[in-house]
């Protein structure tokens, strides 16, 4: 059974049909790429899955359970974590604090019991430290997140998402603005995450990264799915090439 399934998902904004009857499956522990020219609807699909938007029609099922109508924080609690296209961090708080917040479960008790959360907080803090070490960022753990260089900020976003112990991790253009070495480092880290049991859905414009690290790729154009295949097949797919011909710069390798 697929970990996540989209059935006929449609999203309309007023008169604009952003996403048109998408069917899609994501299987456990795979890295699935979601690509398409600008305006194809990738981020919209993304946002529908995480609950930022409610889809106009269709269903989204997580391990068979309907999540289409849930709010974003409820979906996060079900085990879907995400990063953002623009870098959203708690800028004035330390990197360590940012990751600790990711482990939301430690703060969930009512106010009256918040003092008993000390154990949970310390555990979260320890775990945050582990994650930072694994991402190679433990030296910057006390820096304000807003002062990190761009690449490390993007990594921090992923670390925060990882801290919430997700089953499915949605990455929205994680390597945007990074240089080649940073991209490789990040994508290798993503691969390691998969080996830890996390399923990855990757939206990216960087074709080299997508082709190299994704096992399967779904291609969207104008809100519709036009291909769903292995990277080699997608690369030579005529519809895909035609869709991108209007934006050739996206199809070159960085």
């Amino acid at each position, binding site marked *: 059974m697929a970990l996540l399934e989209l059935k006929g998902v449609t999203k309309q904004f007023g008169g604009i049909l952003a996403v048109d009857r998408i069917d899609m499956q994501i299987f456990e522990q795979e890295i699935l790429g979601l690509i398409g020219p600008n305006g194809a609807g990738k981020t919209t699909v993304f946002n529908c899955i*995480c609950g930022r938007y409610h889809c106009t029609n269709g269903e989204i099922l997580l391990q068979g359970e309907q999540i289409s109508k849930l*709010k*974003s*924080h*409820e979906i*996060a*609690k079900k085990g879907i*974590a*995400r990063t*953002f296209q623009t870098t*959203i*961090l*708690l*800028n*004035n*708080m*330390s990197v360590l*604090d940012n990751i600790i*917040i*990711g482990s*939301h*479960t*430690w*703060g969930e008790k009512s*106010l009256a019991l*918040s*003092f008993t*959360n*000390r154990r949970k*907080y310390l555990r979260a803090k320890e775990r945050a430290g*582990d994650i930072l070490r*694994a*991402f*190679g960022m*433990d*030296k*910057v753990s*006390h*820096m*304000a997140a807003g*002062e*990190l*260089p761009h*690449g*490390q900020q993007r*990594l921090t976003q992923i670390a*925060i*998402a990882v*801290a*919430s112990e997700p089953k499915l991790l949605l990455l929205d253009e994680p390597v945007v603005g*990074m240089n080649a*070495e*940073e991209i490789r*480092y*990040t994508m*290798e*880290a993503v691969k*390691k*995450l998969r080996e*830890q049991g996390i399923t990855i859905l990757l939206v990216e414009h960087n074709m080299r990264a997508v082709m190299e690290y994704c096992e399967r790729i779904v291609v969207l154009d104008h809100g519709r799915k036009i291909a769903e295949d292995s990277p080699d097949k997608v690369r030579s797919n005529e519809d895909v090439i035609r869709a991108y011909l209007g934006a050739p710069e996206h199809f070159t390798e960085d």
Partner: protein
Amino acid sequence: MLPLITPGYYAIHTYTWLCIYWMLAASLRFIMLIGAVNFAHAGFMGIGAYASAVLMMNIHCSFWITFFLGGIISALLGLGFGLITLRLRGAYFFLVSFALCEIIRISLSSYWIGTLGGVTGISNVPQPNAVLGVEFGPDSLNSFYLAVIICSLVLISLYVIENGYYGKILKSISESEELCQSVGINTIKYKVVVFVIGCFIAGITGSLYASLNERITASDFTYSLSMFILVCVVLGGQEHIWGSIIGVIVLVIIGEEARSTALFEPIIWGVSLMAVMLFAPRGIFGFVTRFASLAMKRSSSSLKIGGDKQWLS
């Protein structure tokens, strides 16, 4: 200024009032921690005041019960209001709280005139009942001590909440609600809880005020009072609870000094506010801490991504 330092009626009177303002300022600032500027704060105080007064006078309830009931009733109203409105963005929430403040004022002065006293309000509100032989007369030393004790408890509680783990979540929500939601934090719930706590404190402040002042009218609790408290919070510095304390002191002093020059009071107040906003927006506390050492250690930012190249274990 001297009367404030020498013991006597005037000093006790003023310091008691400071306690009232401190509680209002600290609780308003607490609500502002989650990004909501509650313009109805004075209204919630009014609800507590009227509730306490009416219960004491009509069913002869003891102050020690009506004190909390005033807070609870305000908190309940805050709960209902907050659940509905806290998902609104900043400006809209501000406007709707403004509307609520007016609704409260109009309701208190125009309806149930028999019980609430209409425009003239309620006079001869009973003092706190004597307990363990301690009597609380009007403007008495004991009333002053009561105000100080309650105020201290409130301020300490708020400080503890803010600087504990709960406070860390609140800080995160105010930095980025979206990020918090994406990791599973139900931000609305936290906002409502904070709002309810703030309203509860406004309510008990009202109850205390009702008995200490002995009379209350709806015009005591208008948006002007909300605005005054808001200015105290911002002028003192939003970053720390001490800011609210300082802000109240400064504004009350200005008020006292200006009173001697009668008419000029609002203009001094207004110009001071403008000056602070233009030249020291972090308030007095922020201004002072600017010269203190920075809290965060800064390591060199030339670290490359990847650092030690450690993989997830």
